[in-house]
């Protein structure tokens, strides 16, 4: 099953590689991984999307907690949470396709953030499935380039991850 795991980690050199190394050394999957500092400059927050049985996910959280620089770990998928990912997608938008492409971006609540004679760059935010759906909906020949941030997530309501 797919799990989304949030990790608070000391903002120290090497912390990221310690975590990614643990995943590869123990043969766990990483579907996506995002990391950036939090409001507390001494800490970074990482979101890892991984796939595995319940036993594997239990081991992943235990192994993460075992790393000395890891402050806290939460499996967001255990309860209600919100998940978002951002994608920038550059598509062909010549005279012929321009109208259709604009409409398609609107349907998915994407924003066109860069325009040239024959391209649009669209910014799209949502959960991973929405981004997948947008890519599916486009004529594959129309896609020039895509870049996705990977998922980040947060618990709903009073469910918080902080020190």
């Amino acid at each position: 099953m797919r799990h989304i795991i949030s990790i608070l980690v000391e903002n120290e050199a090497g912390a990221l590689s310690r975590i990614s190394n643990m995943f590869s050394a123990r043969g766990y999957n990483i579907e996506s991984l995002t990391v950036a500092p939090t409001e507390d400059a001494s800490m970074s927050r990482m979101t890892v999307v991984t796939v595995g049985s319940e036993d594997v996910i239990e081991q992943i959280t235990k192994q993460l907690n075992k790393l000395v620089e890891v402050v806290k770990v939460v499996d967001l998928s255990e309860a209600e949470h919100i998940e978002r990912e951002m994608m920038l997608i550059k598509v062909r938008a010549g005279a012929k396709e321009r109208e259709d492409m604009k409409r398609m971006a609107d349907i998915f609540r994407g924003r066109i953030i860069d325009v040239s004679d024959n391209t649009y760059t669209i910014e799209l935010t949502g959960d991973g499935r929405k981004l997948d759906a947008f890519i599916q909906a486009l004529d594959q020949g129309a896609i020039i380039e895509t870049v996705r941030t990977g998922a980040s997530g947060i618990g709903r309501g009073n469910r918080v991850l902080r020190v």
Partner: protein
Amino acid sequence: MDRIKGVELSGAQIVVRCLQEEGVEYVFGYPGGAVLFIYDELFKQDKVRHVLVRHEQGAAHAADGYSRSSRKVGVCLVTSGPGVTNAVTGIATAYMDSIPMVVLTGQVPTHAIGQDAFQECDAVGSTRPCVKHNFLVKDVKDLAATIKKAFYLAQSGRPGPVLVDIPKDITTQSCEFQYPETVALRSYNPVKKGHAGQIKKAVQLLLEAQRPMVYTGGGVVLSNAAPQLRALVQQLGLPCTNTLMGLGAYPGNDRQFLGMLGMHGTYQANMAMQHCDVLLAIGARFDDRVIGNPEHFAQNPRKIVHIDIDPSSISKRVKVDVPIVGNIPDVLDDVLKLLQDRKPLDIQPWWKQIEAWRSRDCLRFDRASKIIKPQYVLEKLYEVTGGEAIVTSDVGQHQMWAAQFYKFSEPRRWINSGGLGTMGFGLPAAMGAQLANPGATVACVTGESSIQMCLQELSTCKQYRLPIKIVNLNNKYMGMVRQWQQFFHGNRYSESYMDALPDFVKLAEGYGHRGVLIDKPADVEPALREAFARKDELVFMDFLTDQTENVYPMIPGGKGITEMILSEEL
């Protein structure tokens, strides 16, 4: 300890001061360009003694053996680049067996890092998978606090090696020295006490058991919980087995001890593991060499209580019913409190069954043999040393026979590389053990193949007058490889024969030691007696043993714990 406050010290001076503050007796190491300033400071003092090994792998193993035999943190010091890479095998060995060790490594100057400088190697990157934690010191002001953290991390929680990489320019820069009294890390808070509710549940299960079994590993030795373990096992009259790493935690010659379990464990221990109804696992991790195939193990229903300091060891290979995370002595103290003055359990039928298994006498061997049987040498080693020696070993058949035939009565007397299985470990580990226990009898049980992997340390033994007794079981084969080839590869002994062996007697003499060749069973005991009587000398005993002898019982790889191959010839 005296403390100089507000004094400016160089990084090199700080390193040595930190070691003094930690009460470090010995540093095992090898100098080189990046650590010259640290060596210069070591030269100017005499509190911390340096032991010069002949290869950095030896330094790591010696620090490891020192720690295992003494409860203290082992320390080694090596230079950058090849100094670090040579030490990696020793660091990984310590990591797999959770040995508290601090490894100080030199690094090229900070401005040269990443430039492919001479003797540059990314020490932190290359050791990351085999250390508990590691640090690169980028500012001399962080040096003392980092070393303090390293010592704290190495010995707290589940112990392990911690590496501190120190660039050369940091050792020349200076700052005010103050050794921190304490360490606080918000991301690292190992537990001590176990959960009271879980402990109650565990005691309840034990008291209701018809067929209880106690299985303990290296964790009991490392956490110094042998007294509590013995009290518990004896009070309730329980059967007990130890893993390879756990030997000595429970006395090897006690009736309630079923011997070692696992791939080369005894018939009775493995059978009892499979057929018990309540299993109490303490500081052990159900690894592949212990329970074999986990699916086969799970076929028999039993309740499992698992006590361990490391949550990730629990339910990793085997699902457990009552997990208890905590420091073993604390948890067992709580268990004993709940037991108060409980009488032994009434489990006569279970003991009868165990005795029936035991009566198969699975460790018997041919005593009439005209060729020296390796088992016989170890049996005699046990007798001659009165079971009081610290025994280190290398890896292979000799290691298994030592574990089976030397009945360790105390923890920290059996020192071997269980997790990583590192050939070459025995001799340098014996050096560390001898230095930690001056006057103690230290034997290194090895084979002609293993001993050649760190042979150069015979020179270190001479320099520091370490009177280690080397018991070389020489069958001219990598015996365990040969055994597997016999059983599973159609007797095709691919590259397992050791041709062109050195004359070990002359070799020992060449290093300034005494060497003895023993080729008849009748000479085994006299040779051992004579060697152990030489208190001040290293004696290399080269026993020419039966080339075809195998270690029994044996669970073939991937098979279940009761699917043992037993010795047939008797």
